């Protein structure tokens, strides 16, 4: 496994990559602290697990007819688990011996996990237990950061802070384990966030997992404070080049973006996949479903040690998904990725005591976190050239037209002869709007001049520049850019290019192969953009040209074992979902007049059609649902996912933005057919998304058949 160039922004590695079964023993409901933010709101000094109950549970998990993963994590929790270290020791021994006797792999493939407040960490009994199980356990001590922060929340029953009691134990702990802690932030201590994380790092605790509480505690302006603290922390990390030294999970490279369908079918945590034995000898889906942490609903157990697990009561957890637990706001949220939730807490907040519910108190805090996260990764890239390892997630885009004479970058060509340029202040305003509203910024440069100047303020934004290829020398000073070629610029001595765009007019298709072949000599990938198709588009010639490009790509691979990409042919082999242009839905245009439009084509044609501006947002986006793919009937039955489905072309020829004209559909199906032939020619080398043969070019046929339409005069 290669080392990532950064740690700040990575998650803690979990043992066995999270594949191990977790078995939790809640050994006591008592604790020697009374932390103010603790979710265990009903602590009880008289509730302790009986050893015989724990033994019965161990026998059950080792012998019952249940599915057992290869590895197991034995988790001891409280209250404070170490106040019952003798009980923990006996349970551990019993588990190890019984697993060995029974020949279960769990006798060796296990980890003991304990998270303690550290108050009695140096007690001889605790130390004896650690020595006895050394190499097979991990212990985390919860230290919240500075003394001020820690003592604000983590207090004894008499109100005294616990910091001075714990600190003497930290060096001993660090000598025994990889120092890793978990910090929780609530409303009252947010202002100490930056100092607290730095303090932990300076104490030699390099790995800090941190989060804000899910509960309904957040006050007005807390989100702004959270964001400013995170930005200050990011600056500290970057200014001192600490990004590869420490770890803090408040930053994450997988944060933000829409959830895809696969992610929506998962849920946020392992409740119901893990088992927790309570002090009452009942088995719970997670300790957060025990009565001691619930305030509104009853405890939800899934079994007990006498009767085992009632699988009927587990079924809600096996069928729970983010999609079913969230409302439409969360499902469609542009930054849903990484917005975690606690199922147990949600259940407690549900008015109907349902597991299919989601509390949303954390929403504004998550938004603040995402903004600060974008700031950190933008500066990490712009200052140090370190790219964020990102998941393949869909993110909103805002295209800044730096001039009315912007370079073509979508299917509708820019025929404007105007030269209005976007002002410096307008750029700043647009960037601020992008950050606040979670857009990725794309700067579209003018066709005829390169006037852009980098500014220090841009460093906090990750900007993709689309630059005419003739300005390739000037573009070299930009952090991230895509060259846009046309027939006149393909021969420029740009050197090797990984990725580029190539524009060709629909009435120049006869030279498509020739131009693409020339460009492929230096480019690994071409995003092919056919401009201004219309009813007269020569489909036969287009297919002929694409077939020649297809043959060339296969020949490159056969002779040189090099795979080159031409988007409209090769992308479909790897796609299992549509990649339409998303204009008016997840993509917008910010024009020199400081208004926002659904797309550049609509801006070029009719400037009265703005959908908003950076001051007021998208307040004029009428019939917004029509821009969404699910409102396009033809796309709903089509798998030519490489099709951009240009809404501008739709509007011009069918009068509706969500209905494609037949020639656009046929063009995409020609590409689909060539992609199928390319896949056949490349055999196993061209993706895993199988493209089937179709008998039609226009998907309206499929729609007719699906909907069983037999009336009307429409002839397709």
């Amino acid at each position, binding site marked *: 496994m290669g*080392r990532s160039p950064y740690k700040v922004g990575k998650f803690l590695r979990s043992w066995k990559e999270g594949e191990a079964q977790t078995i939790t023993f809640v050994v006591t409901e008592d604790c020697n602290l009374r932390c103010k933010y603790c979710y265990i709101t009903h602590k009880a000094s008289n509730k302790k697990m009986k050893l015989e109950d724990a033994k019965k549970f161990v026998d059950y998990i080792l012998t019952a007819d249940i599915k057992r993963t290869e590895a197991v994590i034995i988790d001891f929790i409280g209250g404070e688990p170490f106040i019952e270290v003798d009980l923990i020791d006996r349970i551990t*021994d019993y588990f*190890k011996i019984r697993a060995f*006797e029974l020949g279960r792999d769990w*006798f*060796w493939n296990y980890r003991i996990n304990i998270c303690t407040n550290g108050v009695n960490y140096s007690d001889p009994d605790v130390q004896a237990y650690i020595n006895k199980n050394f190499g*097979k356990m991990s212990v985390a001590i919860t230290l919240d950061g500075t003394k001020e922060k820690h003592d604000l929340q983590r207090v004894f029953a008499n109100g005294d802070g616990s910091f001075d009691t714990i600190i003497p134990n930290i060096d001993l702990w660090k000598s025994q384990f990889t120092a890793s802690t978990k910090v929780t932030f609530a409303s009252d201590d947010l202002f100490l966030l930056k100092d607290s994380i730095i303090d932990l790092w300076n104490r030699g605790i390099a790995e800090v997992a941190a989060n804000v509480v899910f509960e309904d505690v957040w006050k007005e302006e807390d989100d702004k404070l959270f964001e400013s603290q995170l930005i200050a922390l990011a600056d500290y990390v970057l200014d001192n080049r600490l990004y590869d030294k420490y770890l803090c999970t408040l930053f994450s490279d997988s944060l933000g973006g829409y959830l895809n369908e696969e992610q929506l079918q998962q849920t946020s945590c392992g409740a119901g996949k893990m088992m927790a034995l309570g002090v009452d000898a009942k088995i719970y889906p997670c300790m957060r479903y025990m009565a001691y942490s619930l305030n509104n609903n009853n405890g939800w157990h899934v079994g007990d040690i006498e009767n085992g697990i009632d699988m009927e009561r587990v079924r809600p957890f096996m069928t729970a998904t983010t999609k079913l637990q969230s409302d439409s706001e969360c499902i469609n949220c542009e930054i849903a990725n990484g917005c975690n939730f606690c199922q147990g807490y949600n259940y407690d907040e549900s008015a109907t005591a349902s597991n299919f519910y989601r509390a949303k108190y954390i929403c504004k805090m998550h938004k603040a976190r995402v903004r600060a996260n974008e700031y950190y990764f933008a500066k990490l890239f712009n200052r140090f050239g370190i790219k964020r390892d990102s998941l393949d997630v869909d993110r909103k885009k805002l295209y800044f037209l730096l001039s009315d004479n912007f370079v073509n970058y979508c299917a509708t060509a820019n025929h404007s002869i105007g030269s209005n340029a976007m002002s410096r202040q307008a750029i700043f305003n647009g960037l601020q709007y992008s950050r606040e509203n979670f857009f990725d910024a794309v700067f579209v440069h003018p066709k005829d001049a390169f006037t852009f100047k980098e500014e220090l303020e841009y460093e906090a934004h990750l900007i993709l520049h689309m630059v005419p290829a003739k300005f390739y020398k000037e573009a070299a000073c930009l952090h991230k850019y895509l060259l846009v070629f046309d027939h006149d610029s393909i021969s420029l001595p740009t050197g090797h290019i990984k990725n580029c765009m190539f524009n060709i007019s629909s009435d120049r298709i006869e030279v498509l192969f020739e131009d693409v072949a020339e460009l492929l000599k230096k480019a690994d990938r071409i995003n092919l953009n056919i401009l201004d198709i219309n009813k007269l588009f020569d489909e036969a010639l287009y297919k002929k040209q694409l077939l020649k490009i297809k043959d060339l790509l296969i020949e490159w691979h056969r002779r040189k074992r090099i795979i080159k990409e031409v988007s409209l042919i090769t992308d479909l082999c790897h796609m299992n979902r549509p990649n339409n242009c998303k204009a008016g839905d997840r993509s917008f245009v910010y024009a020199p007049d400081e208004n926002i439009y659904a797309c550049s084509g609509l801006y070029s044609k009719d400037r009265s059609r703005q959908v908003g501006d950076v001051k007021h947002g998208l307040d004029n986006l009428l019939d917004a649902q029509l821009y969404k793919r699910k409102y396009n009937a033809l796309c709903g039955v089509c798998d030519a996912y490489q099709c951009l489905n240009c809404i501008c072309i739709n509007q011009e020829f069918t009068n509706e933005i969500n209905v494609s004209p037949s020639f656009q559909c046929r063009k995409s199906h020609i590409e689909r057919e060539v992609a199928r032939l390319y896949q056949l020619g490349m055999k196993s080398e061209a993706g895993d998304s199988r493209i089937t043969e179709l008998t039609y070019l226009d998907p309206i046929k499929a729609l007719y058949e699906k909907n069983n339409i037999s009336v009307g005069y429409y002839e397709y």
Partner: protein
Amino acid sequence: MSKATWDIPKEEMEAIENIFERKTALENLTKLPDVINNEALYEKLITDYGKTVIAFQKWWDNGAEKYGWQGNMHVDFEHSQVVEE
């Protein structure tokens, strides 16, 4: 002078990790009186431990032959590497 490192394929890494986990678990079992004083259980443990130690040594011998390791090495489980000491 920087220490020599060897990137280890996933399968080989999982093999040594499992052997190491098993060896540690068996060693920890020898600390339990209920195991030591149980003749059948102790016999089972000693037999298993013997096989595990042989597997452990074999992994290092195979690695030395395949990668040319010489001298003292250790496994960096976090980065899937063997590192010269």
